């Protein structure tokens, strides 16, 4: 059993009416590393400063135990014994960390003289050794802060934080504001230093790539509370709390080809946090309980998650689905063979494959427009909560109906609200898909609309019943490229806004990788490869996937020009 270096229990930090940190607990074992990630304003820096006793006394409640002794309530003198020697902090803004009127060398020596009572010569030698460890020379120590680059200052800041050989190093955004190369160097440096000196690391960052590269464990902080904690690799590859999931999906990095998507809504006002679970207004799967009762951090399958539902739920689960068609006399022709798949709440899953691969049949089976020969489809909501956007909008609307009748039909069938309310919903939904809402437009018939407009009408119809899952079968294949792109963006933003699941059926892998979280590759009725969108498009395993990617349209000037 390793020794627990830092143990934080039920930590609260309040400034007047602002509850910046609201009941955070975690442990950090000596020599291990923990990343605390979250959006700006989630309370990460406040937490770091609380661990160093930098907040006014009385604003911090709870317990912070360092090697078993309580830090909260210590006087300024006793804090002096802890800072630098046991816990050292390298702050976010290296420029403001150094005093501009002293040489940086002097400033690095200062904590050693104060806290370790080292004589001048000894501390100078140590400062030089530290500078060399962070890849700098004596020349840098003689410089004034303004004579150094940002990266150099950041490295010297790190050297200073390590000067008293702390057991725990807290790094607040060590890589923010740096270019990619210095960021890479910083990460490499920190890895090397940790390997040499075995200090525990608490990394506060919204640079998720740095967190992934540097830490063993990760805690996700949201609005002053921990949403999820666990093994860094596990959290990053399969985030389970809806917030972690959204955060990681929102994060742009080199391994994803997706357009930036974000979590819907805004970070709550810290003076008036939402009731119940703080994330519920932005959560795609919130239930009534989430509005009233605050979830606690609890173990769910080996990971601590603060969610009443135990984390992200599976929205639709399909097991071993089979479907065959018999064509005049010949034997049964399998269209879907042994397909299993899961779709999570708020997830965008794309099924790609060429014509005849069974994609459309799969979509129809999921929606219930076809009956499977064998297999299970588990969906915990009413069947009409799965909606379909078919390939051909003209086929899917009654040509005798007006726009209003088309969009209102599901509401009429389900008898939602009064007649006037239904018209209101129709107008709202039409506005949401970017269509006019005046009476003249409502009275138009399908033949009077463009393909793009009609496809939007069909999307509006699919949305009026507030579906949990939308199945879109080649929703833009009949549109011109610019309208297709607009519609794709619209669907993505609606999906994001409403937090529903989206199953996108397409032959165009180039198109879907911009919006899909996961891609399933289908061939001859079976799923031959599946995985995260970024992985499938960058490291496809199957030859067929590779050929789909190669066939994706691109402006390939060079390879074609040679023949001219």
């Amino acid at each position: 059993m390793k020794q627990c270096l830092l143990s934080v229990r039920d930590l609260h930090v309040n400034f007047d009416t602002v509850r910046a940190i609201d009941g955070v607990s975690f442990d950090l074992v000596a020599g291990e590393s923990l990343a605390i990630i979250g959006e700006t304003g989630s309370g990460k820096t406040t937490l770091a400063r609380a661990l160093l006793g930098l907040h006014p006394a009385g604003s911090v409640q709870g317990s912070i135990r360092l090697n078993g002794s309580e830090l909260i309530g210590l006087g300024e003198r006793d804090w002096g014994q802890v800072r630098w020697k046991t816990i050292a902090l390298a702050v976010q803004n290296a420029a403001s960390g150094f005093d501009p009127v002293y040489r940086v060398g002097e400033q690095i020596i200062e904590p050693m003289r104060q806290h370790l009572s080292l004589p001048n010569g000894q501390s100078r030698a140590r400062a030089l050794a530290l500078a060399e460890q962070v890849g700098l020379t004596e020349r840098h120590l003689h410089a004034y802060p303004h004579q150094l680059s940002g990266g150099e200052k950041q490295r010297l800041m790190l050297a200073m934080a390590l000067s008293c050989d702390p057991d725990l190093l807290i790094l607040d955004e060590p890589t923010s504001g740096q270019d990619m190369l210095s960021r890479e160097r910083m990460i490499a440096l920190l890895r090397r230093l940790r390997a040499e000196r075995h200090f525990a690391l608490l990394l506060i960052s919204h640079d998720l790539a740095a967190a992934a590269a540097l830490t063993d464990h990760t805690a996700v902080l949201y609005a002053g509370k921990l949403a999820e904690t666990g093994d860094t690799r596990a959290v990053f590859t399969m985030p389970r709390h809806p917030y972690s999931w959204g955060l990681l999906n929102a994060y742009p990095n080199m391994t994803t080809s997706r357009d930036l998507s974000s979590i819907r809504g805004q970070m709550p006002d810290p003076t008036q946090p939402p009731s119940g679970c703080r994330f519920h207004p932005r959560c795609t799967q919130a239930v009534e309980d989430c509005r009233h009762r605050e979830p606690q951090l609890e173990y769910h399958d080996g990971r601590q998650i603060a969610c009443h539902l135990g984390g992200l739920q599976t929205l639709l689960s399909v097991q071993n689905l089979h479907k065959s068609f018999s064509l005049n006399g010949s034997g049964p022709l399998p269209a879907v063979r042994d397909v299993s798949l899961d779709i999570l709440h708020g997830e965008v899953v794309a099924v790609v494959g060429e014509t005849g691969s069974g994609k459309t049949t799969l979509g129809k089976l999921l929606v219930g427009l076809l009956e499977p020969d064998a297999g299970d489809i588990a969906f915990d909501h009413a069947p009409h909560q799965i909606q379909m956007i078919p390939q051909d909008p003209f086929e899917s609307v009654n040509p005798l109906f007006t726009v209003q009748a088309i969009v209102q039909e599901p509401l009429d069938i389900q008898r939602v609200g009064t007649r006037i309310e239904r018209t209101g919903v129709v107008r709202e939904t039409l506005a949401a898909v970017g269509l006019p809402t005046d009476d003249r437009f409502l009275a138009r018939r399908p033949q009077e609309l463009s393909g793009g407009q009609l496809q939007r009408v069909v999307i509006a119809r699919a949305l009026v019943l507030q579906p949990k899952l939308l199945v879109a079968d080649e929703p833009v294949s009949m549109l011109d490229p610019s309208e297709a792109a607009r519609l794709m963006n619209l669907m993505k933003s609606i999906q994001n806004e409403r937090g529903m699941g989206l199953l996108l059926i397409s032959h165009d892998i180039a198109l879907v990788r911009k919006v899909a979280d996961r891609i399933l590759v289908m061939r001859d009725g079976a799923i031959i490869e599946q995985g995260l969108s970024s992985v499938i498009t960058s490291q496809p395993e199957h030859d067929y996937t590779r050929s789909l990617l190669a066939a994706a349209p691109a402006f390939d000037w060079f390879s074609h020009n040679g023949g001219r």
Partner: protein
Amino acid sequence: MQNWLPRAAELTAPDKPSALRRILHTTLGLEGVVGLLLLLFFVVIALFAPMIAPHDPNDFTGRPLERPGVVHPLGTNDVGQDILSELIYGTRVSLLIAVGVAIGTVTLAVLIGGTAGYAGGWIDNLLMRLVDVMLAVPRLPLLILITVLAGAGLAQMTLTMALLFWPGLTRVIRAEVQRLRGRPFVRLARHFGASPLHIFRRHLLPALVPLIVFGLVTAAGRAVAMEAALAFLGLGDPAAKSWGLMMRYALNLPGLLLTDRWLWWLLPPGVCITLLILALTFTGMALENRIDNRGQTR
């Protein structure tokens, strides 16, 4: 498929045609106008028969077999009743039967054809075999038999004719419902949770309107002809003076065709029957065209 591209007709600005031309061309067409006017003419005559007819057709207002004159514009029949009045009142009988048979036939056809087409399976099989049997049986002999057995009241006759006419239309309606049932928008409506009633009311019935109009008009026309035929054979309701009954009485007169009497006794009811059937046919054709174009043009 690029059917959302503007059609050529939509690209050229429509010029404003005169009101008359609009009615003739865009709304109903020539045959529609003629058909509707004729139909209207018969309906007005039927409605206002007591006011238009110079005499009560059952009263013996003159001597038998009078030639046309001032009192009796079309003369009198063999028992001294006014032929013009008989003709005018006969419109009521013909129209009543036409409307009754048309509604009865279409109702049966829509209900049975709709059920068979929508339900499919053994229900469809059963109903369609019934249609086959009905179609195989020769109509007129069966009608004669039923009329003889059930009596010759107007109501029985109407019902009997409806029972004979439904199978043909039922087949057509079933085929159309079967086709519509497979259309994606109907399947989607079912997916939204629509009951068969909703689908029938909102999707099937409006789409069936052209067939229904066609069915109504065809059945009405056939009913008029059939009634005349039955009356002519002496199987009509003797109390209801129809055009067919008039022709029968006229032809019963020995040597009718040897004199010019047939001109005002036999010919007028024959012409009326022809004109009414023609009116119904024209109207049906025009309405069918017009309704068929719904959903295709503005």
